[in-house]
């Protein structure tokens, strides 16, 4: 999977908007979206929220975890722990990027939030690198990766699985077979 596809999946997450138009209930294939009344908050999938914002038809409300204090706590917790801590949303990276790119005027202290999220990401990726390294050097056969988000797995996963596949092939071919003669050059 590439990063664009992970972002596509993240766009299904629900966010709250305040529309400035009115529309009665719509029946999408993925589910119903409640009637839209100007000034009243309503939950819609992220792809629709971004689109409406671009057409200046709504205001976006940041999710409750996207605040400076909350994120500082998350960042410090992540730095203290050796394992991965649960993230406020399985798509925290994509949500922050999309919301900050399209709706930074609706989000207080956008720049600080950007920095905090980047810190959290860097810490987690560093932990992932360390644990991947020990996985390979100790030739483990199995790893548990709870609390890792899809974007993090995707970023390092392709390289990691290919490396592990090669290692496996090299290891399983270590048995000496009789009858194999090396060529003379």
């Amino acid at each position, binding site marked *: 999977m590439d990063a664009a596809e992970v972002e596509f999946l993240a766009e299904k997450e629900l966010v709250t908007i305040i529309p400035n138009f009115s*529309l009665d209930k719509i029946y999408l*294939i993925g589910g119903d979206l409640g009637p839209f009344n100007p000034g009243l908050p309503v939950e819609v999938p992220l792809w629709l929220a971004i689109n409406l914002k671009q057409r200046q038809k709504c205001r976006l409300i940041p999710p409750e975890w996207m605040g400076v204090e909350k994120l500082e706590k998350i960042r410090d917790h992540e730095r203290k722990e050796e394992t991965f801590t649960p993230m406020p949303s399985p798509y925290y990276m994509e949500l922050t990027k999309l919301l900050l790119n399209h709706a930074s005027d609706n989000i207080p202290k956008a720049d600080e939030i950007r920095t905090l999220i980047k810190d959290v990401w860097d810490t987690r990726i560093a932990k992932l690198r360390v644990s991947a390294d020990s996985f390979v050097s100790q030739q483990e056969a199995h790893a548990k990766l709870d609390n890792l988000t899809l974007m993090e*797995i995707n970023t390092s996963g392709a390289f990691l699985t290919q490396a592990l596949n090669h290692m496996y092939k090299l290891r*399983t071919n270590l048995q000496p077979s009789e009858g194999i003669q090396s060529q003379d050059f």
Partner: protein
Amino acid sequence: MTEALDLTGRDSDAGSEEVVLTPAELIERLEQEENLRRAKKGDLKVSIHRMEMERIRYVLSSYLRCRLMKIEKFFPHILAKEKTLHEGELSSLSPEELVFAKQYMANTETYLKNVALKHMPPNLQTVDLLRSVPKPDLDSYVFLRVKERQENILVEPETDEQRDYVIDLEEGSQHLIRYKTIAPLVASGAVQLI
């Protein structure tokens, strides 16, 4: 939800090397497109429905692309498996995909014959595609998410020390493991590949 259904199939296919069974009802979704053509009132409604339709179309077409890529990569093995299906077993390919695979095989054979094999000495003019095309690597490592709790999955490390150990798979947890160990769980839907 439609997208969840599609993406389970899509994720599994992208993560593993086998061709997993196609749910045929995915195709019905496109027929719903017909229903939406009638709604002319309210430009906004129409555009919202159209956007969703585009998204669904993207998921379906990337799913199809993934399957076709697998067919092209492993066509001799897939066709051999189709030939040996017993009574009552479902094919993992849709009828159109089967036709595609057969045509691809015929075209490849014709191509090889005309470009190279025709000019070889007579006793070297056949090529065994089943042996020359690489098999799907079932020992590759995959990431997975557990849907149903599983107990006592045997993990065999490859080092010389005898360290077979069993693990339990908790619901909702994520793991990195060799595909072969969990292949039956993917087929039964107990785990989902990431």
